[in-house]
């Protein structure tokens, strides 16, 4: 479980995060949603330790990140998997080498053990036979799946995804969403996903945190988001006529 308490972050005079308090549960897909510029990416980068924050605290299963020694921080980071928005695969390595990278860096496994593990995770993300391709030869959806494989290869306790569906067609986006949810459930990972994809919100949002102007404006799940009367949330989530109709039908059916 990840607990965030009164998190503040500024860049110069711009106060980006204005005291966010929330928790992200183990074995659940936790979504952070909000408009562009609401502070989602800054929040995620603070969680990952890529940005220092002015005040507040972030704790990973009771361990407060800012109070850890450098070695403990490094050990904690080895338990984190991250899927970046642009996949962030290493250009100079093949797909298999990309996936193997965390194993080479953090484990003492033999080559054959590492190859077996890479085969297993690539199969898990439906990428058998793509071992020797370079990232530039893979489609956007494949690159995202490689990024997920690299993120989970070392059995992380925490998985972070920054807009994993951006730039993908709707069908591939659903495949990626389902894959993340299955992996979260299967390995009981604490997963935090930054998204503004409404399909993801409805499909896999077991917990949803809505940010607006650097503040937590609402918290709930894909079940409760239909019933909320929080205007900021309804304006954002049901901004399209299609989603307005979906919400209306849901509420009529469940009354």
């Amino acid at each position: 479980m990840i607990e965030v308490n009164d998190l503040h972050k500024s860049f110069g005079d711009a106060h980006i995060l204005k005291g966010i308090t929330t928790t992200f549960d183990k074995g659940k897909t936790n979504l952070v949603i909000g408009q562009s510029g609401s502070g989602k990416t800054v929040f995620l980068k603070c969680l990952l330790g890529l940005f220092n924050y002015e005040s507040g605290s972030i704790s990973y299963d009771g361990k407060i990140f800012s109070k850890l020694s450098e070695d403990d921080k490094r050990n904690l980071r080895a338990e984190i998997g991250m899927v970046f928005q642009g996949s962030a695969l290493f250009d100079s390595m093949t797909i298999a080498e990309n996936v193997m990278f965390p194993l080479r860096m953090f484990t003492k496994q033999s080559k054959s053990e590492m190859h077996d593990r890479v085969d297993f995770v690539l199969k898990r993300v439906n990428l058998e036979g793509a071992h020797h391709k370079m990232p530039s030869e893979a489609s956007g959806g494949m690159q995202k799946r490689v990024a997920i494989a690299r993120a989970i290869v070392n059995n992380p306790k925490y998985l972070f995804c920054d807009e994993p569906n951006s730039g993908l067609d709707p069908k591939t986006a659903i495949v990626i969403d389902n894959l993340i949810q299955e992996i979260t459930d299967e390995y009981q990972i604490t997963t935090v996903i930054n998204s503004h994809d409404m399909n993801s919100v409805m499909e896999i949002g077991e917990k949803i945190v809505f940010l607006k102007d650097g503040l937590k404006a609402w918290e709930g799940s894909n079940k409760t988001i239909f019933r909320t009367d929080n205007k900021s949330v309804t304006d954002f989530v049901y901004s399209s006529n299609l989603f307005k109709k979906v919400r209306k039908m849901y509420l009529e059916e469940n009354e």
Partner: protein
Amino acid sequence: MLYLQDIGTYFLMIVEMFRKPTKWSVMKQLILKDIDDLIIGSLGIVAFISFFVGGVVTIQTALNIDNPLIPRYLVGFATRQSIVLEFAPTFMSIIMAGKVGSFITSSIGTMRVTEQIDALEVMGINSLNYLVFPKYIALMLYPFVISISMFLGILGGMAACVFGGFSSPDDYLIGIQTDFTPFHVTYAFIKTFVFAFLLATIPSFHGYYMKGGALEVGKASTTSFVWTSVFIILLNYLLTQMLLS
């Protein structure tokens, strides 16, 4: 103020580069790859430029000697001094700032833009040690490139001398052995080691700390070339003053 901040960041980067070392089995491969990219990959252009510039130095020297009292072996002597003292270590380093420096800046800068450096940091890897340290170690072989440049420059001079009819091979060979001071070679290699350090670190600094997108990668490459050249010229002056005067 911004320049002072950049200078401070540069020195902090150098300190950080030596901390939290990457696993040796991984580092070994990175060093070998960088030796291939930065050293072996530069040999062709170094050989080509050195041979022909050596030839041009010889022709220019020969054409400017019109006094019959000046011995013909002076052509070889002047070529050797020009190549060993300045052309190979300094001029070649400025060329390498363009070739190797812009490669380092653009490759690290692209990694920054595409969040590959963030990916390393999230994994708990010291990205500066992972990216910059192997380049620094690879460029410690740079004197090897410069010794090839010296040899080919002098050989190019001899070829120009012989084929252009400016002096005989014997005169040229006497010239390159005349008044030879071994310390001049030591001086050249001291400069080379210093320039190798600059070639590894200044372009890495500009790539690692760049902000923006693809356009900024291009701008960072240009800026890194300019600053690497400036510091090579400045340190060349200081080292020459300290070691030869």
